[in-house]
Structure formats: C-alpha cells, structure tokens
C-alpha cells in the first residue's frame, strides 16, 4: 500500500546494513568521499568531545588550548557539584520510570493497534488511521494547555509518574511503524492460522509477534528518544524536585541556579554528559540492528 509522503511524518529511520552493497564502485573519488565524511564527523562530534572536556575542567577554560585536556585542570569536581544540586541518581531513575512506562504502553498497545490497522478489517479502521495521521501533524504545544488542565485538575495527576507518562503513553510513530511492518507480512501467514481455528489474539501472539521483532527494536529505540529527552511536559507537570526527570532538572539548573556555582558551565556540562551518555550508548550498541522496514515504500511516491 503506497503512502503519500505528505501525510507521513516521523517515519522510522531504518536502514539495511546488509544492502551496504555499494551503489557506486570504488574509485579515486572515494578519497574525497572519506575526507568529506571525516570533516562532517568532526563537526558533529566536536561538541560532544568538548562537552566531556568541559565537564572535567576545574576552571572554565574557553581558550583554544582549553579544548585539549590539560593535566592541571582536570577534576571530577563538577560531577560532584551537579550531583549535589540535582541528585543525579534520583533524576536518572525518574527519567527511567518515565521512559519505561512509555515504552511499555507503546509496545503493548501499539503492537495491538498496528496489527489491527494493518491486517484486520473492522469498522472505524479508516477513521482511526486518519486520526492517527492528524495526531502526528498537530504540534504538541497546542495541546499542552488543555492537557495541563485535564490531567492536573480533572484527573488529579499532577506531580505523578502517571501524569508524566499519559500524553506520551502510546507513541504514534511506533504505531505507524508497526502498521507498515505488518502490512509487509503476507496475509497468507495469518490466514493459515485462522483457518486452523485460532482466535485473533493467538494469531497475533503466535505468528505476528515473532515476525515483528526487528520492527519492535526499531520502534522501541525511536520511542525511547522522546520521553528520555522530553523537557516541556514533565517540567509543567512535576513541580516536586524529587519527581523531575534529568532533562527537566538540568534545564532548571541551567536557567536558575547555575549562576551561583563556582564553575557553572562545568557543572552544566557534567549534567549534560550524564543525560547524553545512556541514549548515545544505547544507540551505538543497537545501531546495527536497524533493519529495513518499508522505509523504501514509505518514501516512494
């Protein structure tokens, strides 16, 4: 089923590592290629390198030589400072709970919905799909104010994990990925099981789930980024410091308290490193598991 690109934002970024089979043959031009890529990689990675260096500096050193680690200026003091201000451990745990809750809800309900949208015929299917696409296009910030009233006042979920998780619970991009993926699976596989007399749930769990595993990993990795790095919504919902995820705690620190610290940038960068490392590490470890899942059909006309 073709997909008009105009209505498909946030499609899974997946890539076939296997089909790395060269589109163009090796040639002297490959040296140019390498140079361009090297330069690009440098530009992309330098801020992260600088982040780490800066977080280790005892006194903020913004000169060019400060970009190299100076033996006399290295200390873990900044990490101690940001930990004293923010309680890094608690903030990380909060981030974990927030992200974990979203991942759980997305996997459980998203797979169900994606499968239903792809392989089942039921009344309201088209409507559900259309609304899902609409949801992907409307910016979250428009809904923030009514959502705030709804969740905090009507449901009384202010300052709670549930309140944090609720608007993100089922990631629509993940649903989209699951749908696209299940579309690719031949109907015959499912039909055969149905003819054998299996109920739909069993069809899904016995046949669908094992097949969808690659898409599952992709969707989970993508779903992870959102809540882990989300700042605005948890910032609104949680005013108790003990509940704030790391992104929010760090942002508050940057805007308010940093001015009082001895080396404020050092402390900020230390917090930034702690926030960045898990996400980056996860991606580096799993990036080889990205597999092609209809990205081709999605970007075709």
């Amino acid at each position: 089923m073709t997909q008009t690109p105009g209505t498909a934002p946030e499609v899974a970024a997946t890539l076939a590592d296997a089909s790395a089979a060269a589109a163009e043959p090796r040639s002297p031009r490959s040296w140019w290629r390498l140079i361009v890529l090297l330069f690009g990689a440098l530009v992309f990675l330098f801020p992260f390198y600088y982040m780490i260096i800066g977080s280790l500096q005892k006194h903020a050193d913004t000169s060019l030589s400060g970009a190299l680690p100076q033996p006399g200026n290295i200390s873990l003091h900044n990490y101690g400072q940001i930990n004293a201000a923010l309680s890094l451990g608690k903030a990380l745990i909060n981030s974990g709970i927030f992200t974990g809750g979203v991942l759980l809800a997305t996997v459980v309900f998203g797979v169900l919905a994606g499968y239903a949208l792809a392989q089942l015929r039921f009344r309201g299917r088209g409507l559900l799909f259309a609304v899902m696409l609409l949801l992907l296009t409307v910016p979250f910030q428009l809904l923030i104010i009514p959502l705030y009233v709804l969740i905090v006042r009507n449901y009384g979920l202010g300052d709670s994990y549930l309140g944090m998780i609720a608007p993100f619970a089922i990631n629509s991009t993940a649903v989209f990925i699951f749908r696209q993926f299940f579309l690719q699976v031949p109907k015959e596989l499912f039909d055969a099981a149905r003819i054998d007399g299996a109920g739909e749930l069993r069809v899904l769990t016995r046949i669908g789930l094992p097949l969808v595993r690659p898409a599952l990993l992709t969707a989970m990795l993508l779903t992870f980024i959102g809540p882990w790095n989300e700042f605005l919504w948890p910032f609104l919902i949680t005013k108790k410091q003990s509940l704030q995820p790391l992104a929010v705690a760090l942002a508050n620190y940057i805007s308010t308290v940093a001015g009082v610290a001895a080396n404020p940038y050092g402390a900020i960068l230390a917090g930034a490193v702690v926030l960045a490392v898990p996400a980056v590490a996860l991606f580096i470890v799993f990036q080889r598991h990205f597999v092609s899942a209809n990205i081709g059909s999605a970007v075709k006309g």
Partner: protein
Amino acid sequence: MTGITSPRPKFSPPEEEPRPSPRQSRAQRIARTALGRHPIGIVFGAPYALFIAVLFAYPLGLAVWISFHSYFFAAPGVSVPRPFVGLANYEAVLADPAVRQAFVNVLIFLVINVPLTVMVSLLLATALNAAIPFRAFFRTSFYVPYVTASVAVVGVWLFMFGSGGIVNNVLGPLAPTPSWLINQNWAMPSIAIYVTWKQLGFFILLYLAALQNVPKELYEAAEVDGASWWRRFRAVTVPGVRPATTLVTLLAIITGAGLFTEPYLLTAGGGPNGKSASPVLLMYQTGIEQNRPDFASALGILLVIGVFLIFGIQRLLQRRQA
C-alpha cells in the same frame, strides 16, 4: 509454520470462511457486517483509540473552545466568568507585534534550516552510500546529536558560543559583537544552525534508505555517458529521491513550527528584542507564565493553520513541478 493445534474455538467460527455457513446465527451475521469482518480489531485498537480520544481529541477541542472565550486558570472550585468573545483573542494575537516578530523568526529559521538540511543531508548520505571503511562509525557520529537531549547539547553550545567562548576566541576580531546568541541579527540564525546540526542524522538516514531505491543502472548509464560526479548527482540522485525530499521538507517544517526548547534555553525569554522568540515560546509565556491561555490557544491554532497552509503550498508547488 508451527502447527497451531487448536482446541475447539470458543468464539464464532473462523472469520475467513469463503461463504457464510448456515449455522451462523443472524446476530453474528449482523455483527459482522456492522462491525467489519474482524470486529476484534475494535478491541485491539480500543486502547489506542481511547488514548487518542482522551489525550488528543478532547484537549484539541478544549483548546479550540478556550480560544473563543475569555479564559484564565482559576483555583479549583472557584467559578469565574468565562464569556464567549468570538474572534477577540484571534484579533489580539494578530495585532501583537511580538507575535508577528515570532512568526518572522520562524520564517527566518525555516529559510535557513530547510534548504540547508536538505542539501547537507543528501550530500552526506550520498557520500555515505558506498563501501568505505568505518562506515558504521560515520553513520553513528551523524546520528549522535539527534539522540541526545537538546537540554544536554544546549549546555555545550552556550559554553562554545558565549561571549567568552571558544568560538569567539578562535575567530578573534571576526567574532560578531554582541556575541552570537545575544546579537539581534545572529540569534535566530544561530538557533537555526544549531537545530540543523542536531537533526541532520535523522534526515541522513532517511536519505540513505531512499538512495537504496535509486536503480544502480541509472548511475552506470550516466557514467558510461561520461557524466561527471556532479552531473550524475543532479541528474540521477536528486530526482531519484524526490519523495524523500518531500518528506524531509515536511518534517523540517513541522519541527520549525514547533520550536520551543532551543529558544527557551539558548536565548531565555525570547532573546534580544524578541528576535529569537518562537510562537510556541510565546504560547508558553502567555499561557503558563502570564495566565492568559485564551491568547495562547488562539496563537496555537493560528500556528497549526499556518503549518497546514505551508503544506498546501508545498503540495501545489509539487504538483506544478510534476
């Protein structure tokens, strides 16, 4: 396939029967036509549908409602007058110079961000699309900014581009005064470049996938014809990935329209003279900080309409090209 030995099915007979057996009751047949062939799809989709209804459709409706009334947050149980005011909030939004400046800022952002994103990501994807050593390393390095929280990376950029930061130290006399993020002319472009850098990895991967679909034969034919690399790029690659380009453009526009974290953190309070305020930042300031959610909701709805307008224009241009 693993054999599914099923005990006698508990519910109705299998749905995929070629023709309805006479044993099927009338109720079941009605249910099938009314609810579709797989009514259980409704159950599967129900949690998601509920989620959308409660946490998306209802707030959206509420936002629209708020935008047509005079509304401010009150303590629970306190009843305050919330009269219907028609289009008054929309008029106020359109008349506010800060709002106009914010929309101009978004346009500046888009003008810098979208073409830059498209060009650089396509170029890098093309460069990456070959059997080169350390391919995985390069790909990962481009992706790293994307997966990192903006809050984290902003810290580094503030450190690098601050008045006494390393960038200004390197540039020396060439550094703009006042420095980048507090400079009226450079604040929004700085943010645009920052966001471009941050999002590039995602778009590179989109293009990489799209490039897989460009038939190798086209490249080989062009090479046989003696076309230079640039000519091959323009004649084969660019048209070949046009759908991806559309997608990339749309995603970039949506990101630009919803810009909040970067203006909030990089240039607190909207920057010098409001020159780096974004509409969403204004929504936050008016809706949450100043307790004027009626104004903020009207602004938000106008923003969404604006985004759809841009989509529409883009579609028109596309159709005319094709």
